[in-house]
């Protein structure tokens, strides 16, 4: 029986259904939370049932996901190309390395190649839509998902190990584990998004009371995110730049009351009791010009984040034509920040096409 015919017979049917099930599960998650768990199973199918079967079921998975019209809406072509690349790469690994090595090293290679191909494909797609260098997006995606990708490769290998004695029954525990890891990852991303949105909504509410400030922090956060991605920041570094940008004016916003005798508070003092922002406080303190109480010099990492936020704020002022040339935020920070850091941030802003105000 040729490998292609196995598509409609025996265990290949169950592998196909399992891939479809994972894609349906995937379509129930937010697009940004996609874990592409079915890719590892496609690689396992390529090893166990032949690569043509993997192509067939991979395509069927794509089509079903597109029909579901949830997480993949508007990206059918991109996903089709990526999924075809995945099965092709897994198939090439199987054909070239299959005869030479055992089943488990083979599945580790095939699944590794498959999830990496999917990650690269999705990173390229995101880079094109966001106008960012693909290498930065890819590095960020790998850093953020390394553990999840490793778990998926393990599960693909587990499928092959169990298949020898359990045949298609092996898919039951493996599917459960795929769903468990993907679901827990998605829940984590959900709660992180909740924190970001909560912060954004609160700042927006506070800014709304001051017409001249409305929307400033959110715009600065978007500009700062773009610059920090171009600077090569990733993961939590890029996230805390976003939080610092959202909050950089919160002290001023929160002290609107005219008979406030204490003067304007610093942004750091407003959010000092918020646990998940503890690593953002040093950045806010630098922006507000508050020295570290212990006398320590700020780290270059914090200075870079602070300078990105300050420059982003000045850029927003320039675009909106309300920048006070005499006291730009970046200029106020300039004496603290090493020249190479300033050059890196300014170059990133210019490469992103922002109108950078006059630079010292």
């Amino acid at each position, binding site marked *: 029986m040729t490998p292609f015919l196995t598509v409609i017979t025996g265990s290949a049917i169950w592998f196909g259904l399992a891939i479809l099930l994972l894609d349906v599960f995937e379509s129930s998650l937010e697009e940004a939370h996609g874990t592409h768990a079915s890719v590892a199973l496609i690689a396992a199918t390529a090893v166990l049932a032949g690569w043509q079967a993997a192509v067939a079921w991979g395509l069927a998975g794509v089509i079903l996901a597109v029909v579901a019209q949830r997480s993949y809406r508007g990206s059918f072509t991109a996903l089709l190309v990526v999924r075809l690349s995945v099965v092709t790469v897994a198939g090439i690994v199987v054909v070239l390395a299959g005869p030479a090595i055992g089943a488990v090293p083979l599945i580790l290679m095939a699944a590794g190649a498959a999830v990496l191909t999917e990650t690269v494909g999705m990173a390229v797609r995101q880079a094109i839509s966001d106008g960012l260098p693909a290498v930065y997006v890819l590095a960020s995606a790998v850093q953020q998902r390394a553990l999840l990708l490793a*778990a998926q490769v393990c599960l693909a290998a587990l499928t092959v190990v169990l298949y020898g004695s359990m045949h298609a029954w092996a898919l039951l525990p493996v599917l459960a584990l795929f769903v468990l890891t993907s679901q827990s990852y998605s829940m*984590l991303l959900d709660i992180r998004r909740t924190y970001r949105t909560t912060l954004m909504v609160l700042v927006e509410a506070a800014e709304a009371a001051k017409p001249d400030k409305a929307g400033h922090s959110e715009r600065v956060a978007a500009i700062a995110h773009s610059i920090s991605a171009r600077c090569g920041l990733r993961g939590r570094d890029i996230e805390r730049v976003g939080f610092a940008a959202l909050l950089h004016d919160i002290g001023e916003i929160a002290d609107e009351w005219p008979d406030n005798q204490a003067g304007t508070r610093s942004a750091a003092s407003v959010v000092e009791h918020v646990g*998940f922002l503890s690593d953002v406080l040093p950045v806010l303190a630098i922006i507000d010009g508050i020295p570290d109480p212990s006398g320590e010099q700020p780290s270059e990492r914090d200075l870079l984040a602070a300078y990105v936020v300050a420059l982003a704020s000045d850029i927003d002022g320039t675009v909106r034509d309300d920048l006070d040339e005499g006291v730009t935020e970046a200029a106020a920070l300039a004496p603290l920040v090493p020249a190479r850091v300033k050059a890196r941030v300014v170059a990133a802003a210019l490469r992103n096409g922002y109108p950078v105000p006059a630079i010292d």
Partner: protein
Amino acid sequence: MNDARRPFEILAFVAALLGALALAGSWMALPPALTIEFYLLLVAAVVSENYAVMMPGYSFSIVYPLTMATVVLCGPTPALLVAALTSTGLGEFRERNWPLVGYNFGQLTLSTFLTGWTYVLLGGRVLVLQGTALSVAELPRMLAPLGAAAVISVIANIALASVGVAVKSSQPLLPVLESVSRVLWGQLALGIAGFVIAQVMALEVWAFALFVFPLLIARQFYQSFTAMQDAYTDTIRSLVGALEAKDPYTRGHSERVAEYSVLLARSAGRDGGFVSRLENAALLHDLGKLALPGALLRKTQKLDDDDWATIRSHPEIGGRMVARIPAVSVLAPAVEAHHERLNGTGYPRGLAADSISLEARMLAIADSYDAMTSDRPYRPGLEKEAAVAELRRCSEAELDAGLVETFVGALENAPAAPLRSLRDALEEEPA
């Protein structure tokens, strides 16, 4: 010795004694040599027990599937050893909480004893002894011993855990049993996972890592998730408090409304999920007011129609904002309706009676009470008695009369202490 603790100490002693007897009685069935599979499972169980992830009403630990795996792979007595050696985390030892250590030991060894011998007596094959994994042809014959062992294990664990909790906290057994039983399906699924671990290790010992690694990753994600989820209400409280602080007349208002709402919901017998939701809604109920011009909020002259129209827009603005936050978006209708009144005279929509949700009716009472007892630019705050009288007057047409009485009763029974202490005291009560 504290008399209140004595029943649990006696129970723990009896459980530990029975557990030790179960272990001693099974000792003859210990294989002559323990295999690498046993030691791997033991180490994994010890590590897992000490790094369990606590979720609301659920502890995410993989000790249970690991003892199931040991039953199937090595037999009942090695499984009893794993259970006995991992029954209690290091935390309880450090705290010298001996009754808890004893009860945990008794609970896990007894449930493992019943599970292991059920599996063997019903014809379950111990995989390591015969040196092969289960084949597909064997699976149907093994379903009875595997299924019975999993069911016995879940029943024994849930029953023993419920008895322990009920005696320790002096609560009736049935509600505790009902609460603990919520983990039933999850425990059954973990039992199946235990069988898969055994099967994997019988095929390839090293493949154990392929199974455990994804479980550990899932555990890591859950741990981060629960940590952030637990801190979420405190985060909203800090941020809203910081933003409200600009106005001396509303400083602390949302936090106080949250405290009153929690007091009311608990007194009305609502469950923990409802209370938590209402607390978040209360913290966010005046979000729309933050967006109003400060000059309007601190105006001491009579407000004109335009001023009132602007102020009356704040529940809608707040509702729209809350609707954008994924975890609390379900609270948006309550935030939007917290100024609605039962007789239809409220705003923004003029809803009446049953059209106003329970959450919104509770928020209205808590909000009104705090507004009455707080100072305003144009009047000082009312005393508690006067505010209660005003609440009762309003309950004739505007507020929910039953809830108002529950709230007043709760206020009168609450200790005269600062609000934070009041809340802490409530949290110390058994759920």
